[in-house]
Every structure is written in structure tokens, then in C-alpha cells.
């Protein structure tokens, strides 16, 4: 693969804190290698800002290998940038060419308030999990791991849903800021497995209730969540969520 360097113009959202008014700042960065990751390009910018005595751009990131779900950013209008099933930290600069302009914003949703610059508060996701995204089994309660066989196809399907990294790109991509893909992935994961069965009904009702309370919007089936999901979580999970919710709502006993 041919490597090259490029000069770029960046328009980056800067916002001092949650209550402050934010605005775009324009920066030019030079001699960016096509082998760099997108966040390494931001490292270059930040190092320069610090030497110039300015505040570096705040952004969330941690594992930089696409699994922790900490990184965010909307890059030229797309959460996690242009590559399919990819996180911002795994986007590489060979995507861009010399002279390009890149607009970088935080994930935007009422339920994800901006903390600073490109960093948002996704605590709402933790609270949704608290409302029911678990199996109530205390340490020491478990029976032997092979005591309850699980059909392979169901186990695989549950695993696919469970690969959600909780990054919030689905919310940022949705014009309604709906969290349905996130919630449906957890509901599907646990309702497909026999271990999740006892709390199947209360879980879906409580999680949906919490989602509404957090101020996420409704789902209008545009599928933009699936298109931008870095882990390729399928919208079929939302269909399953709706079925689970209906079944739970129409049944008298909530458990």
C-alpha cells in the first residue's frame, strides 16, 4: 500500500462545558501520514495546541482498538466517520487526501449532554441497564455451566446482539435520537437465552420505561442506527424488542 502525507483543514466543535455556548473552530494540520489513525491525527493537533499555549480538544477515547465504546465524534455528518462497521479510533487517515476539509462534532442528543468539546455524557445508557439489563443471579447461585444446553443458533444470535459496545452511535445517527437499537440489543441478548427467561417480561417493560424517562426519542424505522453501528447490530433486534414489549404489556403478570 502506498503511503503519503497530507495537509487538512479541520472544523472542530469547541464548547467549554455543558452550559456554555459552543462553536466551530477551524484548524489546519500539516504532514499527516496516511498510516495514522484518525485519533492520532487529533493527537498531532493537540500537541500543537499545547505548545502554542492553547487548550487541546477534549474527546473521549480509551482502548483505541474498537471495543471499549468510549470514542465517539460525528465526522462529516456521520457517527464514527465514513467506514462501515467501524469506530472512530479505527478510522485511518488513508481515507482522506491532501486538501480535504473535515467537520468534527460531538454526538448530538438531548439525552447525551455535551461535557466539553467532543465529549458527551452517556450515563443514560448505564441507567437503562440498571433498570433491567441483567440476570438476577448472585455470585455463588449458579448451577453447572453445562446443566442447561442452549441451542447453538440461539446462542449465536444472543452473542451477535451482545457485541453492542454501548457507544451511542445509534442515538447520534437517529433523527429522533432514539435508543431503540441499544435497548433492543440487550433485550434480545438476554431474552434469547434460558438464563434470561425468568425476568423476560419485567426487563423489557422496565428498560423501555427508563429509555423514555431519559428523553430518547421514538423509533420511526429509518434504520440509520444499523447503518452507523460500529458492530453491525441488526434492526431485527428492534422488531424482537417490539414483540417482547407487546407480549409483556398484554400479559397480566409482569414477570
Amino acid at each position, binding site marked *: *500500500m502506498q503511503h503519503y502525507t497530507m495537509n487538512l483543514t479541520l472544523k472542530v466543535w469547541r464548547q467549554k*462545558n455543558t452550559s456554555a455556548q459552543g462553536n466551530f473552530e477551524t484548524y489546519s494540520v500539516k504532514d499527516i*501520514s496516511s*498510516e495514522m*489513525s484518525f485519533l*492520532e491525527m487529533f*493527537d498531532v493537533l493537540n*500537541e500543537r495546541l*499545547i*505548545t502554542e*499555549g492553547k487548550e*487541546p480538544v477534549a474527546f473521549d*477515547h*480509551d*482502548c*483505541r*482498538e*474498537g*471495543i*471499549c*465504546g*468510549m470514542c465517539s465524534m460525528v465526522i462529516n455528518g456521520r457517527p464514527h466517520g465514513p467506514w462501515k462497521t*467501524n469506530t472512530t479510533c*479505527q478510522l*485511518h487517515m*488513508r481515507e482522506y487526501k491532501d486538501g480535504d476539509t473535515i467537520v468534527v462534532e460531538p454526538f448530538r442528543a438531548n439525552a447525551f449532554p455535551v*461535557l*466539553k468539546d467532543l465529549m458527551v455524557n*452517556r*450515563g443514560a445508557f*448505564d441507567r437503562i*441497564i*440498571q*433498570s433491567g*439489563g*441483567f*440476570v*438476577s*443471579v*448472585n*455470585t455463588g*447461585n*449458579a*448451577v*453447572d*455451566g453445562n446443566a*442447561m*444446553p*442452549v441451542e*447453538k443458533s440461539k*446462542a*449465536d444470535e*444472543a*452473542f451477535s446482539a*451482545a*457485541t453492542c*459496545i*454501548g457507544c451511542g452511535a445509534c442515538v447520534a445517527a437517529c433523527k429522533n435520537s432514539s435508543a431503540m437499537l441499544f435497548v433492543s440489543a440487550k433485550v434480545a*441478548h438476554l431474552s434469547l437465552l434460558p*438464563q434470561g427467561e425468568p425476568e423476560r417480561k419485567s426487563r423489557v417493560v422496565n428498560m423501555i420505561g427508563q429509555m423514555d424517562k431519559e428523553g430518547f426519542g421514538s423509533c420511526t424505522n429509518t434504520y440509520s442506527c444499523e447503518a452507523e453501528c460500529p458492530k453491525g447490530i441488526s434492526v431485527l433486534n428492534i422488531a424482537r424488542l417490539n414483540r417482547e414489549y407487546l407480549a409483556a404489556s398484554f400479559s397480566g403478570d409482569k414477570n
Partner: protein
Amino acid sequence: MLNAKIPAGPLDNKWNNYKGSVRLVNPANKRKLEIIIVGTGLAGASAAASLGELGYKVKAFCFQDSPRRAHSIAAQGGINAAKNYQNDGDSVYRLFYDTVKGGDYRSREANVHRLAEVSTSIIDQCVAQGVPFAREYGGLLSNRSFGGTQVQRTFYAAGQTGQQLLIGAYQALERQVALGNVTMHSRHEMLELVIIDGKARGIIARNLITGELERHFSHAVLLCTGGYGNVFYLSTNAMGSNVTAAWKAHKNGANFANPCFTQIHPTCIPVSGDHQSKLTLMSESLRNDGRIWVPAKKGDTRKPFDIPEEERDYYLERRYPAFGNLVPRDVASRAAKERCDAGYGVGTSKQAVYLDYADAIERYGKSEVNKRNLGDISHEAIIELGKEVVKEKYGNLFDMYEKITGENPYQFPMRIFPAVHYTMGGLWVDYELMTKIEGLYALGECNFSDHGANRLGASALMQGLADGYFVIPYTVGNYLSDEIRTGTIPTSHPAFEAAEATVKSRLEKLKNINGTQTVESFHKRLGKIMWDKCGMARNEEGLKEAIAEIQQLKREFWSDVRIPGEINAMNLELDKAGRVADFIELGELMCLDALTRNESCGGHFREEFQSPDGEALRDDANYMFVSAWKYQNESEWELQKEELLYDVVKPSQRSYK
């Protein structure tokens, strides 16, 4: 000599006897006892959930925005357990034995045996939580093999085992948050330990959003803060992984054990340039099917597929015919370094070797032809079939490689090189996981106890969860049963005042240096010193130079670092500066530790101590001990030792030939 308080009796009864005789805290009293847990990876989240379930009042802290981000999530390969579901001769004893041997006889027998004993309960617990482990068509759990062992005991969830286990523990933790048993403080960093009358009684934490310093009291403090591999700047650790909490504990009196025992993982994606901010691991499971080679001719610049079979050197298969490409990590890493140092490396940097799937693709392709009864089909068609099989087994890893390098690993062999991955060293703990400070515990990678000088694959997840789910709930009770009369100590206590003042003055000092160089530039320089002189191979001269260079770097840091922004607000550079300052001090201790251990064992390879064919040469007569360093003063430590007694296993020269 340090006393590890190992229970008496035969090895396989120790833990049961301990559990049977340990003091308990009654449920009403548990509600009055508070426990602080710092770090919410596998060890921290599992401990927080389990202790919350027992009824203790738990306060958990993490620097990330949610406990689900902790770097345990990045573990790929799997988790070991002595279930013997495969009927292939596995047992608690074998898992124990493999771990002790893999650790090159530098771990504590009693701890490792306990780890092997509880390993089976971990799998049961995780399955009950809904962790979607890989399964066979019959619906039962699937296993695979991993480096350094000859049985199939590794449970896995595709290449995302760490993620699934962490989410299981995270969900259990969030359930306790909902029940009010655990209070979660995310985006908080512990910056000081509070000690009252010799006992750990709380922490000073910085709220990373507002910059405020907070005082938190507890009856016991558990550090579950992971490893310190980022001292090398480049490692497979997450960007935020740091030693700060453990280092504060160390400077307050907790011994730091075997700091130089670092694991360099053989299969990582090589460095591509000076801009590199971190390294990415490719699961060890790739060595099950891939073959590792370099050109047999020095400086061969031909494309890999232009190099004929007879001009390739499959050096692991050549040097270690018995284990071949599946030798343990330390051995595989050193062998790669040896070839690259000798001038046989590949790629632009020449610091890489090939991991080749061509043979595996062809082999799987042919077996598909048989399975599907396809008869006589073209070679190209066979290769396509083989690629499909490889994709199913390793697809996510191959995709990751392609994203990072821009090269298609189904067509070209991957280029790999060793990288810092795990630290076996850590805070010294006794059998109960208590450090030298009463009431202060260390769990998971943060402690030193179970992996000796080298960790086997798929055992980090096992240890983190063992400590959190099944060890600490017993051992912390033994301590807290004496604390029920302590009551709540108000955070206006002078010890809290003093600890907060220490933190405040340090932050101000850092901020007021107002120099010219960035934190990152210091971290990079530290990393280079450590990698060059305290990395895969060390020698006396280099280590002495490294110590002098680190001391110089420390002076420069404290007189010329530049931190923009404010103290009383979010300040990511200030956070990073504190961590790098601690890494600099730790780096010096690691070099000192490596310098004083005049032997080679596991990941610690002293060039002066090797066999004629380049293998690590242990010195059991003089070094069968844990080096547990006690902090005295700046650049001054006292070496305290814990003798390692092998009652059951007979240490021998590790051989994988």
C-alpha cells in the same frame, strides 16, 4: 522475609480449610461496613457486585465514563477453567501445574492452586449471568486450546471473550447500583490513599469533569486498577490505563512486587511510525493455525509470495519442534526479536515477522472439499473454500488487521511483532490479597500473585474474576469482622485534610511548572528508554544507563512540563501529567528490580544469563523469591523478600523443544 499468611495443611485443602474457619460478619453488621473499590474491570466489577450482594455498602470508582469501558473488555482469546468437559485429562491439578510452570516457578503455589480450584465456578457464574459463550451443536459449551498447554480448557466468545465477561460483571454491578448497594463514581480518579492508625480508611479522588477533590471514607479499600504496561508508552493497554492508584498505595507503604516482570506478547501489529499512540494485539489463537517465518536470507526485500518455500525460515518450528508455533509467549517473543536483531526482519521498519495463513487456508479448503464431497475442483476454488473457513474462525481479527494496515491478510501474510501486553508484577499481597497496608487489598492484574514471571494465555480473565467473585468476598470479611466497632470516621478527620492537601499541592506544583514540553513527549521518551533497556532483553550496563536517564528525565519533567487549562475544571493534560509522573518513578524501580535479579526467568531475560542456545537460565539457588520493594525515599527502596516454597511442584528447566 515477608509472611504471606498461607494457611497450613495440604495444598488442595488450604482454601477449603480457610473458608471453613474464616471469621464472618453478620448481615446486619455488613450494612454498616463500607468498602471502596477503585477500578471496575473484571476484578473490580465482580468484587463490587459480589460485595454489594452480600450487603456491604460499596463505593466504586473508575476514570472512564462507564464501568463497561475498562480495558478487560479488550481481551480476545478466552478464559481457562479446569472443567475437563473435553475429557482430555484436565484437572484442577493440571491447570495449577501448567500455570506454575508457565510462570517459570516464580509464583506462589497456594494462590495458584486456589485460582485453579475456583476457575470452574467462574464459568458457571458467567453462564448464569447470560454470558454468550461459544457452544457446540448439542448446545453445550465449546473449548479451544491455547499456547503453553496440551488440553482444551479455554472457554471463549468468538474473539471477544473479555468483552462478554466484562459486560456480565458490569450488568451484575449495575444491578447492585439499582438496588442501592453500590454507589458508582465514574470519571473519578483516585489520587491519594488515606491511612488512619495504620489502616486504609479512604481515598482522595478527583472528579475529572469538575476538577473538584473529594474525600471518601471506607472501612477497607480494594485496588482493582489493572496493570502498568503503559510505562512503555506503546503497549496494548488502553490509553488511560495507569499505575497511579497503585503507586500512591506503594508510596504510602504497600510493597511493589516483581515490577520488572513484564509480558511482551508475540502477535501484535507492528509500529508504523513515530505518530503511533498504541499497539493492537492479534489474539494468540492465531498461532493455532498460522505459521511464523522470516526470509532465510538476510535483508531479503522480495515480496513474501515471491520467496520460495526453501528460502523461508520457520524459526519457531525449527527451534522448538515439540511446541512449534505454540510455544509460550515469552519464548515466541524473544525468538522474533532474535531474528529481527540479526537482520532478518520484514516490512519497511524491518521490525516484524510474517504470520502466514496460506497453509491453513489450503488445508481447510481441502478438508471442505472432502466434507462437502466436491470431488475434483480447481486449486483456486479450494483456496476460496479455505478462506471461508478461516473467515469464520478468525474473521474479526483479520478485519481488524486490514483496518489498521490497509492490507488484506487473506492475500498477504500478516506482519507481526511483539508488544508490551501485561504486567505480572504489581502490589505485593498475602494469601488474603491484602497489601502491606492493613485494610488495603489488591485484586486482578494490579497484584503480583498468580502468574510468576510469565502469564499463560487465557488466565488473566480467570484471575480477575477469581479474585473478585470468589476470593475477596471471603477474605475481606475476615478483616472487617474486627471493624464493626469502628463506625464511620468523618472526612473532616486530620488524615483526610492532610491527604487532600498533599494532592492539592502536587496538582498546583505540576500546573505551575509552566514549561515548554508536552506531557506526551515525556511519556514517549520514558517509553523508549524502557523498551530499549528494560524490554524483551536486559543487561547490567543498559539498566544502569536507564536508571540515570530516567532520573534525568524526571528532573526535566518537573522543571519543564507544560500543562494548559485550569486545575478546578476538566483538564485532561493535568490528569495525564500525574499519571506520567508516576510512570517515571515506577520505571526507575522496574530497572532497579531487573538489575538486582541476576537470572533470567519468564519475561525477564537478562542477556548475561542464558544457555548456550539462547534460552533463559534460571537461578533457583539464589533467586527463588519474590522481590517486594518497600518505598523509602525518592529513588530509594528497600528490598524485602518472600521466599517461594514449592511443596508440590518440583521446579525444572522449562523446555518446549
